[in-house]
């Protein structure tokens, strides 16, 4: 998930919604995707589709059974719960398993709005959420701060959005797993940590050159809570747009 988070960070730097994913087979990252809806003008180019397309590009044999067999072996790690569209796409492909970061309040198809992963259309798949959830939310908030800057109606929301409390995950919406702590619910690491403790620069190399600034965008976690004492970076969307022109 740390790698997916780093790919989402790269998307943020490219002015796209910071949502990203990786597909993993036998502990190896076989493809990477991040949201491309702005650049493509196509609102369906979600991270999941980019990663799926790259797996399919690498498959010579495109028989439906072969594709299904391949996807059964894959685990998707995605920073935000798949939307209803992606949840259905993953189902139609026969994905092995989905692990996501934060819930998707508006469109979530793996528990928040609908339970596409285990509805009675086609075969079900397993899906668990909450991994590096606060970090996933921090990237999104960072993105929406710049959105507000260019909104036609000036909003009162400012950088303090980053400092908003992180609401507890509504665990009852999602399928539960004891995979990580053996006791049940909070599958994100508890206690205290810095992101770099969990995801080392070495791990990020699969996603390209490692930009150490990545770590400056996240608060530390102290006793299971977000510790706002650290000064974190904020994307300067306006300045970056000017630079690009």
């Amino acid at each position, binding site marked *: 998930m740390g790698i997916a988070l780093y790919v989402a960070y790269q998307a943020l730097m490219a002015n796209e919604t910071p949502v990203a994913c990786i597909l993993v087979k036998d502990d190896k990252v076989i493809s990477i995707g991040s949201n491309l809806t702005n650049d493509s003008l196509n*609102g*369906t180019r979600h991270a999941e589709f980019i990663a799926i397309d790259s797996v399919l590009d690498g498959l010579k044999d495109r028989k439906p059974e072969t594709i299904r067999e391949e996807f059964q072996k894959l685990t998707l790690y995605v920073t935000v719960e798949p939307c209803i569209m992606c949840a259905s796409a993953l189902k139609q*492909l026969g994905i092995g398993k989905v692990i996501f970061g934060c819930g998707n309040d508006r*469109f979530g198809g793996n528990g928040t709005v609908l339970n596409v992963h285990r509805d009675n259309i086609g075969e079900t798949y397993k899906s668990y959420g909450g991994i590096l959830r606060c970090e996933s939310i921090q990237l999104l908030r960072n993105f929406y701060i710049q959105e507000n800057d260019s909104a036609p109606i000036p909003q009162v929301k400012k950088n303090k959005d980053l400092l908003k409390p992180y609401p507890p995950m509504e665990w009852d919406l999602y399928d539960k797993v004891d995979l990580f702590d053996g006791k049940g619910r909070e599958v994100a690491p508890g206690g205290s940590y810095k992101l770099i403790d969990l995801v080392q620069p070495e791990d990020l190399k699969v996603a390209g050159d490692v930009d150490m600034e990545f770590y400056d965008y996240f608060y530390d976690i102290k006793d299971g809570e977000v510790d706002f004492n650290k000064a974190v970076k904020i994307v300067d969307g306006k300045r970056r747009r000017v630079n690009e022109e």
Partner: protein
Amino acid sequence: MSKSGDTSHIDFENGVLYGKLKQIRQQDKQISKTKPDLMSVWCYRIKPQDSKKVLAVVNSHFSPIDGEQLLHVKRFQKITDGEVKLDMLLCLYKSFGRDDIVSIFHEHGSMTIEDGDLRVVDVPSDSPSTREVALAWGAEFWPIAWKGNPNHQFLKKVDIDIEEVQQNINQLLANLEGKALPFVTLFDGSHRVISHDCRTDHPLHHSVMRGIQMVADQEKEIRTTATDGNYLLNKYTIYTTYEPCVMCCMALVHSRIDRVIYLQPLPTGGFESNYQLGARDGLNWKFEVWRWLSDPQLPPLDNKLNA
């Protein structure tokens, strides 16, 4: 709107236009007198003489964000508890925080909101279907601005040229010839695109998904700036042979389509067969969905197939 106010083409009871287009939507769950779905709204208790000033702030700062979501409820409710006061709805709870509201009124209305005067109330999130229910909800939750059965109002307002629909469907069906799978979609908007199913190349390349990509490619050629921002399928109607799958239906939500017309339902579909994704509460975009009722002679399909 039908030009002369003539409504002879509308079957209000069944939601059918010209005997050929059946409206696909959630059943009138609200018609029953059971509890309505509720939404949280900020409510400000004011003195009657302040109502103009407050309304001005609401119109300039809150309503543009909330859009049409509060039009079915009355803005004010009179409270006679000793002196007369007004309870006034400001905006959706999710649109603004308490601090935001306090500072907006401070800055733009020179008003200081006392803590106890600003609270959150639950109001029905939709208009009911009958006047009696509107009155009952008004008494229990919040007064409703009753304007008649909302779906009847809607059906009267639908602006659809049935001849044009028939022609487009003829063109759609003409494109079925020689295809292995009978899935084809016609996009009718600022670009006109006909897309076929290509799942033998890519299992997710359903005709709707491919069509969206084709429209995006054409649009990309003419848009000069990336920020030139309408949603892709704004003002588009699509015609498609079978009820699209859940993935394709949600892709249409993301692209903000205006109208969908299909010929045959499918058990895997995301409109009438599952979820009603064209008009689902909680999603941020709703659109018209219709099924064409004339017999188009489409082949029967495997129940598990996704269109």
